[in-house]
């Protein structure tokens, strides 16, 4: 893959009223629903960065715009469907993966991305996640992990670090969280990576790469939630949560152990980021094609 850097803003060529100034247009304007702006996300939230990286990935993996499909569940990150200019389905809480499964199997020519939050994908939707990974449905699942339920005002969830404060763990979280990359890998995902929204370049490259792969692929994006999780746990503003990541994130490639897959996330402890899995497994669609050939042979 080539690391391309583009100017964020391009001169649109449109001249202003006095003929000298020009109006700047974002190069992704046509890939977003500008009429829906401003978006609903809080100041300092990481979701927009992740969407920018996804759109970058679509472009760099040369996925035609009409073939892009986003399926989301319910929660802050699931609101992506209102801003990304693709076929977009805002479904029920936790059910984006099975909805996407039916969609992808019916039209394998489409590039189907599930984009949802940690609570949606791993609490109410956890069972769907592991089964889609086991079957190796050809989907990219993006989890915006902000360690809590943001849309409902900051409750704890399946990725909340132990001891962390939330509106439903006022004395500290007694539960232990999932290590999402490890879970995805164990369930059979073909590509597993974790990045933070601090690492915009790595995140964009990851999207560009993962969209060229096949099978059940999982990208965990750690994203600041300064208004809820950050404030409650005294991490501070979005920028301060980015600083938290900068101080604590450790690249997997810099660690001796080569078989490490993610890490348990604990407050104040190092966070392992990187690409953990990149492998080939026959997809459900490929295996089913063999079944269909057998059925046709049997004259069924």
């Amino acid at each position, binding site marked *: 893959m080539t690391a391309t850097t583009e100017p964020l803003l391009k001169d649109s060529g449109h001249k202003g009223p006095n003929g000298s100034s020009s109006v700047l247009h974002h190069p992704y304007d046509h890939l977003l629903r500008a009429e829906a702006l401003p978006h609903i996300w809080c100041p300092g939230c990481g979701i927009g960065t992740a969407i920018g990286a996804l759109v970058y990935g679509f472009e760099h993996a040369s996925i035609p715009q009409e073939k892009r499909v986003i399926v989301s569940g319910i929660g802050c990150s699931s609101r992506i469907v209102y801003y990304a200019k693709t*076929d977009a389905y805002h479904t029920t809480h936790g059910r984006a993966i099975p909805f996407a499964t*039916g969609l992808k199997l019916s039209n394998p020519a489409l590039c189907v991305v599930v984009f949802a939050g940690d609570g949606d994908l791993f609490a109410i939707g956890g069972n769907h996640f592991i089964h889609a990974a086991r079957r190796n449905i050809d989907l990219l699942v993006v989890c915006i992990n902000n360690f809590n339920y943001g849309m409902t005002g900051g409750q704890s969830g399946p990725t909340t670090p132990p001891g962390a404060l939330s509106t439903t763990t006022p004395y500290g979280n007694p539960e232990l969280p999932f290590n999402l990359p490890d879970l995805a890998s164990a369930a059979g995902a073909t590509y597993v990576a974790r990045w933070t929204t601090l690492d915009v370049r790595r995140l964009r490259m990851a999207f560009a790469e993962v969209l060229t792969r096949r099978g059940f692929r999982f990208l965990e994006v750690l994203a600041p939630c300064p208004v809820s999780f950050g404030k409650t746990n005294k991490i501070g503003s979005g920028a301060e949560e980015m600083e938290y990541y900068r101080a604590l994130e450790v690249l997997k490639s810099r660690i001796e152990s080569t078989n490490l897959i993610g890490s348990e996330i604990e407050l104040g402890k190092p966070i392992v980021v990187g690409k953990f899995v990149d492998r080939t497994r026959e997809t459900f669609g490929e295996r089913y094609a063999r079944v269909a050939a057998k059925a046709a042979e049997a*004259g069924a």
Partner: protein
Amino acid sequence: MSSAANLLLAPKADDSMVGTHFMSGDHACAEGAIYAGCRFFAGYPITPATEIAEHLAERLPALGGQYIQMEDEIASVAAILGASVAGAKSMTATSGPGFSLMMENLGLGIMMEVPTVIVNVQRGGPSTGLPTSVGQQDMMQARFGSHGDFTSIALSPQSPQEAFDLTVHAFNVAEKLRTPVLLMMDEVVGHMHERVIVPPPGQIPIRSRTRPTVPPAEYRPYKPGPDLVPPMALAGDGYAVRFTSLTHNELGQAVTTYEVQKVLVPRLRDKVLKNREVYERVELYKTEGATTLIVSYGITARSARRAVDLGRAKGHRIGMLRLLSVWPFPAARLLGLKQIRRIVVAEVNMGQVVLEVERLVSGSCPVIHVGTPGGLVPLPETILDACLSKAGGKA
């Protein structure tokens, strides 16, 4: 994608089953789905509906279709909705416990306006109840089971042949009105074997959803046509559609205000209620001159038919209104029978559709319920007794 045609989205008519068969209601339902062009089935095993899944697991792959066994019934409905937005005609089949899990995404299908078919081969409940015995206890769940205000369409066959016919009808209705349709079978109809005639392709008209003709820039995914149904662009059509479970305007933008809600939710109701000719089917059996009317559906209607015949043989003026479409209740067909002085509602439950009949006649004549708690279809003699007894109110 390979250049081969996608037979899921553009199914080829299948004539391999044309002819006369000795077939169960479950298999007839599966064959009806194939006849209607359904090439996507997602489900989860459950008695007494499993045979539908088994039959389609065997039949669909050779037709270029897709069978997938999901992790539960919640996922099953999610998958058939996803298949449908991509353009596949899709179906799932279950029984009571699974139907409960399906209520969540039934609401999604109604709100997003996604055509699909959900089959419930009813058994006795509550809970695990009577897995292998008959029930008609999910009729109110079919009407009201998902949260929020909605108007469902539910059909109920009395025989394997009708399981075939009404499955085809269910797909046609779903496609025409862009909404999920519920096929409320029962264990007896599902498991009984009878003669089923599969007609040649083309004999029963097959309908497909209306697609937009305007260019993408002008497309409004929830702008209804004159029949109150919005044309449906498919995923990959280039329309950049936005379908959502939230309250939404014509553009598919989430606008959670009273102003938008008061336009959307009544339209979802009206597109069903104002298109009755699309789905409504009843049979009037010996109602001419009848003063006592039995209202029944599904397997119980066959017992009720016998009750009518027994009563008529003894000179009693009894007839039957048989509901092939139960919801929305065919109110005008009932209230049009002006000479009726007494109504008996027969069903395998403790009193469900009878509540709607009582509401409609509003005390103008006695309404008597003949039911069982599940596991037994009311006997013809019991139904006849209720027709002839002097008692009013509920039996």
